[in-house]
């Protein structure tokens, strides 16, 4: 992994279109600004992992829940 040391206010450019800005450093927290084209999805890693885990859990459950059967019967 590439590691770059940056001070507050300094930037990192990724490719042509993506810029990371170190906006604020306070204790153990750093606030980053991200400039990227609107079609690039930017997510906190925890959120990405939560989505991935939920999707993979859904793919493992192949069986139909019984509650669904009742739902279909209730429909006209």
């Amino acid at each position, binding site marked *: 992994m590439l590691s770059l040391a940056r001070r507050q206010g300094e930037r990192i450019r990724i490719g042509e279109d993506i810029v990371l800005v170190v906006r604020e450093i306070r204790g153990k927290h750093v606030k980053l600004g991200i400039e990227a084209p609107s079609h690039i999805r930017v997510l906190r890693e925890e959120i990405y992992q939560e*989505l991935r885990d*939920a*999707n993979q859990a*859904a*793919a493992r*459950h192949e069986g*139909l*829940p019984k*509650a*669904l059967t009742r739902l279909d019967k209730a429909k006209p």
Partner: protein
Amino acid sequence: MKLKSLRFGELELPDDRVIHFPDGLPGFRSLDWVLLHQEDMPVVSWLQAVDEPDVALMTIDPVDLGLADYRPVPPEEAMAILEVKDPQALSVRIIIRRADDEEHLRLNLFAPLFFDVKRRVGLQVPLIGSDYPVSALWPPELEDPDPAEHDEA
């Protein structure tokens, strides 16, 4: 096109059935998916990965679960990725799965799927800043015995 699916076997489908997910779905490689109907249960469609026979996710229109208050609005970035101007052009489905008790459902209300049905593109969108759970128990009147159930096993 020919499609292999663990659940549905080998299928021959018209090419225009494919729905392209430009961002894919977190957790899977496939960018191309098809929606296949569950025969005996028409409200359920399986989102089947074109390139991964063993990957199929159960989906449903939240309206069919009676979730009248659940009206997710796609954020602007999602519209940009899908290249859609009018959010009305998008339809919503949510990923559901069987809860561990085999009886009830778990709903991913946090990250619904938005589809532009005409242009055959789709996107899973986390509703950042919302309180929607990633694994809500259904029917909602039940008391959730295990809100943390996430099927790590």
